[in-house]
């Protein structure tokens, strides 16, 4: 049985549909990322799960029971807010002990739990400091500890790492995932950062315009995106229009031998990841191209190419022969690296 089920959840603000017919089920102990651009409804969906907003229609079920009518403070879900929302007038200890105090736990038990939690988030020895004296990363950890202090049934985080600098953010992603694995707590994180989602999640839910576009394992969302939007949102991709041709498919100015678009289709949108575009000397491969720009990032090199089908991006490990702007090359694409979208051509 799944821990959390959303059935056809819709949220309207007047004419605006913030969440549109979202159906989702979260297995116990899993780590789910709601991923999408800003304004896609992911935060609203999280707030509906937390009980801070009520759905206009649809059902929210927790362990099989409907919880739509349960007020926020009776749900026992831990939540970390984007602004962290630590109480500025309380110390670290008082912040973490707040939910325990409300539930009438004794002083000794509260002290013990605060020490445990500060250990858990690797922040010992700050219990008596005021919140205002902590760094961004420390506040982050205190917010996580506070949300976990009553061992919540569900752990919700709204863009929890967005205030941190890039390096600390990457480190916290790994740490958060390890923490979640240790506790085995069902976790839902809202993020707009696809690297963050890929790092942490068991399952990624991609949203756009209030709708859930795809829910899958991270690698499947990356390798088998359900739509051009998903392909484009998760990392870089080359979106092309292909037509059936002799022995494969044709794109403008070239061919992809062996690619089947599906029976009876006259046109299809396809996606190819930059690492699947292979650069060969001019004339060796079926798609002629000119080097437009070379972006050497040390660990890998991205090559921007102009082709008759438009700009394409290829990525390869460094250590190949250097390419210069203006070089004539040719490209080959393996048919099994191509994702063919089932819908018609959107453009």
């Amino acid at each position, binding site marked *: 049985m799944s821990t959390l089920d959303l059935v056809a959840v819709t949220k309207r603000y007047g004419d605006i549909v913030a969440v549109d017919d979202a159906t989702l089920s979260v297995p116990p102990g899993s780590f789910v990322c709601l991923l999408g651009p800003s304004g896609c409804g992911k935060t609203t969906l999280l707030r509906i799960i*937390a009980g801070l907003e009520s759905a206009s229609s649809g059902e929210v079920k927790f362990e099989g029971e409907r919880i739509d009518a349960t007020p926020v403070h009776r749900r026992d879900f831990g939540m970390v*807010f984007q602004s962290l929302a630590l109480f500025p*007038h309380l110390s670290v200890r008082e912040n973490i002990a707040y939910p325990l105090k*409300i539930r009438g736990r004794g002083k000794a038990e509260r002290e013990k739990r605060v020490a445990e939690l500060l250990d858990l988030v690797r922040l010992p020895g700050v219990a008596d400091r005021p919140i205002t004296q902590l760094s961004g990363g420390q506040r982050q950890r205190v917010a996580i500890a506070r949300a976990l202090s009553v061992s919540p049934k569900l752990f919700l985080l709204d863009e929890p790492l967005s205030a941190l600098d890039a390096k600390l953010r990457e480190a916290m992603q790994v740490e958060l995932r390890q923490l979640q694995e240790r506790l085995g707590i069902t976790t839902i994180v809202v993020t707009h950062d696809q690297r963050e989602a890929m790092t942490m999640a068991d399952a990624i839910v991609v949203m756009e315009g209030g709708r859930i576009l795809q829910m899958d394992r991270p690698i499947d969302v990356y390798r088998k995106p359900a739509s051009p939007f998903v392909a484009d949102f998760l990392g870089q991709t080359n979106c092309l229009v292909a037509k059936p041709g002799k022995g494969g498919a044709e794109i403008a100015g070239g061919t992809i031998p062996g690619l089947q678009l599906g029976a009876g289709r006259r046109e299809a949108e396809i996606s190819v990841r930059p690492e699947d575009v292979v650069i060969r000397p001019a004339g060796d491969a079926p798609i002629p191209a000119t080097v437009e720009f070379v972006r050497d990032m040390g660990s890998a090199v991205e090559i921007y190419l102009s082709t008759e089908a438009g700009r394409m991006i290829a990525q390869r490990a460094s250590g190949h022969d250097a390419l210069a702007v203006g070089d004539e090359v040719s490209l080959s694409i393996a048919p099994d690296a191509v994702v063919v979208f089932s819908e018609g051509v959107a453009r």
Partner: protein
Amino acid sequence: MSAPARTNASGQAALAFPAVMLAAFFVVPFGLMIAVSFFSREQGGFYTPVLTTANYQRFLSWFFADILLFSVGLSALVSAVCLTIGAPFTYLLSRLPRRSQVPWLVAMMAVLSLSEVIIGFAWSTLLSRTAGLSNLFVAIGLMDGPEAWSPSFTAVLCGMVYQAFPYSILVLYPAFSRLDPSLSEAARTLGASPVRAFFNVIVPSLRNALVATFIIVFVFALGAYLLPQLLGRPQHWTLSVLITDQAVYQSNMPFAAAMAVFLVASSLILVLLSTMFGGRREAK
């Protein structure tokens, strides 16, 4: 070297204006008042500059102590009522969409444009036996016959709270609207009911604004002069009424000055005490 010197000179010049104004309109009159409070009264005339403490001795009687206590108590009660209604009101107001906040704020500020006289007469009509609210209650069957609710202590309190309420909103609103709305949401996800979240989280994080509001309304109410006379009985008259009586009708300037000095001193002490109380809790 010359540039900073010039900036300094112009900085002092800029300060000179408020300094002169403060001296001319506050320090000098206040000094005169203190001086007069130590002069002796001349029967049938004004006062003679002969130093005496008789004015203060006369003031230190149960009669005047009683009135001072009443004035301070009334002001504190008005502040307390304004805060009790104003804090939740402002909190809910600041949670509304911005567009719906504007009419409320405009209506609140409109009250400020009413003169004290108009407010006084409006309330005395509203609470009168012949045309007041009690007639409405009779009409809907809540009461047997109309009653006069003014003059009374409640009438004074109502009028003064009505007058001071917009000021309290004015001071509370900026602090409340800057408050991170996720603070109370966080408290609720941690298990606090909305009411508990308000008292555990909202009120303490706005402590400074609440203390400031209390002081401003308190000082404002301490100067009340017209409303206690329009809406209250003589026993509800504040020290300000007595000061005016002594200064204008009894022509006893020195005694009026002594009372005024005492009123200013006691309100200053109370303001200092409350800022110290508010400040200490903040530092902790």
